Structure formats: C-alpha cells, structure tokens
C-alpha cells in the first residue's frame, strides 16, 4: 500500500464531526468549528481508563439485584443471571438467549475486544488490521444493545403495580449496569483504529 495515500502522510487531518479534510496544523475545522486533531486525543489512555471503570462497575451490576418482585407479601430479588435462569425455567429459550447475549456476552466481548485492540496498538502488528478494524466496528455497533435488560426493568416497573398482589421494583444493579453500557460505549468511542494502521505503515516503510 502506498503510504502517501493516507491523510496524515499528506499533512492533512480529517474532522471527526463533519469529515472535512484540512491541513494538519489547523486548530478548528473551518466548516463545522470542531476542535481538530489528526488522531483522537490520548486515545489509548482514555480507552483503558474507561475500560477499567466499566470492569469495576460490572461487579455490582452482577451481584446486586436488578429487579425486585413483591408477590403476595414476599420479595424475590433477581440478578441479571437470575433473570436468564428464570426465563430458561419458563421455557422461553429464545428470549433467555437474547438476554444472555445482550447482558453477559456483549459487555464481556466488548471488554476483551477493546483490551485486545489496545494491546494490538502497543504490540505494533504487521498485518491483520483489516480484521481488527472490523472487530472495532462490531464493538461500536453492538454497544447499545446491552441496554435491553435495563429497558426491560423500566417497562416491568412501569407496568406491574397491582397493589399488594404483584409489584415490580427496580434494583440498584440496573443503575450499575446502565453505567457499564454507557462507559463501554464511551471507551469504544475513545479508541482510534487508525493507530493500528499507523504502526503497520511505520513497520513496513
């Protein structure tokens, strides 16, 4: 690949907000006014800091109840995993799978994918960056789908309040889990996949 074909090699920077190409030393985008930078600022540090935050939040999100059901005077607290088990017991395999994928698989895959990508930048890979960029795109794409469980809690809480008979209340894990989703989305947003390619160019050229 011709190294002069990148924006950076031609002394250009592309605006992250409006895609305009301007000279790399311009401070603000002449079209939209956004702050210009050739690569996302402190990309790796921010990504890792946010990832660590999300990893810590993931603990209370899983050990505390996400939802509390008061039925005939008794309270049943259910965690995220508890909700999945409940759905399996009800025989709703497809829905149990949806919740398991959205609440357990997606956040965990995002953690591993972003840790791996950050490590890849550090390790200076010579090839395979097309796959890594695809992995990054997927990480960005699936991020918000983890919110499904939080929305389920919001809907059940709003709908189910039958006096002393049956009431569903939100648990503290719902807040933690919403935090996990938002912070991992921010972490994915802070990562700059162009860093992978910069290293490849340095190594080849």
């Amino acid at each position, binding site marked *: 690949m011709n190294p002069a*074909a*990148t*924006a950076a090699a*031609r002394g*250009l*920077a*592309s605006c992250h*907000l*409006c*895609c*305009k*190409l301007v000279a790399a030393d311009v401070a603000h985008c002449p*079209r*939209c*006014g*956004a702050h210009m930078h050739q690569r996302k600022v402190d990309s790796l540090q921010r990504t890792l800091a946010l990832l660590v935050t999300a990893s810590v939040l993931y603990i209370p999100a899983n050990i505390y109840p996400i939802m509390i059901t008061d039925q005939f005077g008794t309270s049943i607290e259910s965690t995220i995993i508890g909700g999945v088990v*409940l*759905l399996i017991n*009800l025989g*709703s395999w497809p*829905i149990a799978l*949806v*919740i398991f994928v959205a609440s357990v698989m997606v956040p965990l895959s995002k953690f591993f994918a972003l840790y791996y990508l950050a490590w890849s930048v550090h390790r200076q890979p010579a090839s395979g*960056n*097309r796959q890594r*960029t*695809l992995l*990054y*795109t997927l990480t960005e794409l699936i991020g*918000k*789908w983890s*919110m*499904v*469980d*939080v*929305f*389920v809690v*919001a*809907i*059940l*809480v*709003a*709908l*189910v*309040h*039958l006096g002393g*008979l*049956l009431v569903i209340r*939100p648990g503290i894990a*719902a*807040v933690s889990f*919403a935090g996990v989703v*938002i912070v991992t*989305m921010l972490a994915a*947003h802070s990562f700059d*996949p*162009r860093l*992978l*390619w*910069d290293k490849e160019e340095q190594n080849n050229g």
Partner: protein
Amino acid sequence: MATLIGCQGCDMLVDLTAMPEGGRANCPRCGHFLARYRSDAVARALAYCISAAIALVIANCFAFLTMGAAGLQTTMTLPETAIMLYRYGMPDLAILVGGFILVLPALALTLIMAICVPLTLGYAAPWLVDSARVLYTLNEWSMVEVFLIGVIVSLVKLSQMAEVQLGYSFWAYVAFSVFFTLAVSTLDRFHCWQRIEAVQLS
C-alpha cells in the same frame, strides 16, 4: 479535494466523486463504512422525519401496554417507563431511559427538520452548522430499536403471570422506530455536510 474523504478506520484517502445513485462506499483498505449517496437524500430524510414525528406524538398519547391479572388491570404509557423509575427513587436511571428512548430521538427529529427544510429551500439558515454538529454528536445515543426488543422480552416475561395487551402507542412506536432509523441513515454525514457547505457558499 472537496470529494476526498479520510477514512475514520485507517486514515486512507478515498475519492467519492462518482458515487452511484443509492450506492454505499466502504474503505478499500480496511472495509470501514464511508458514505452512502442519494441525490434526493435531503427530501427523503425530511419525509421520513415528518412521519416519525407524527408516530412519536401518537406513541405518547395512548396506552402502551395493558396488563390484567386476578381481576385487576394496569396500564402504562410510554413516558411512564421513565417516570415510574423516578418515583421509585432512581432519578439518574429515569433520565437515562427517558433520554435514550424519547428525548434524544425527539431532539434528533427536530434537528433533522431544522437541517432539511433550509437545505430544500436553498436557504443558508444561521442554525445549520450548530444543528448538524449536535445531530452528529448525539446520534449514536438514540436507542429506539433496542427499546423495542426490550418490550418484546418484557411481554414474554409477563406472559406467564398475566394477560398483556398491546396498546395503540406500541404500534405507533414500532412505526416511529422504522421511520426514525430510515431518517437517520438517509441523512448521510459526509453528503449532508457537503450540502450545508454548498448552501452557505452560494
């Protein structure tokens, strides 16, 4: 220069001069999405946007879900998903949920209209740049379609203990999510900004 784009995935420069009608461009080096093109994108986005706005108003006016068990009945409306969380002492979560499913999508619709109407008329409105900046910054935080999956999961969870009926608002929200997604994806970032620049220079 004007039709060159720097790929956000790998920084490769790609020329988007001759994009076919209805076409979609990906980076030849890393495969990252670059842009999609339709000559009538602004008019289409505006049409989808108006449809979505009507559906969203309807979705807020009627019952979303109704549940009956043991002779008792409860009804919820769309804004109540956020309001009830607030009443249970979780204002932070209430703001997030209300923001992701109602406020941000409504704001996005307003901004798309604020951009598309002047662009259609060829009028260099002073709010164009700021509207587009806010729109493209906040876009990824709308979770309309995720909420719909949440509704379906809730229905299955409840089906064992109670009878649940879908209200008019539910169907309106389904229509809203379709039109909203179409409006957002039609108003391509690269080409929208080019139109804004063109109308300001003319």
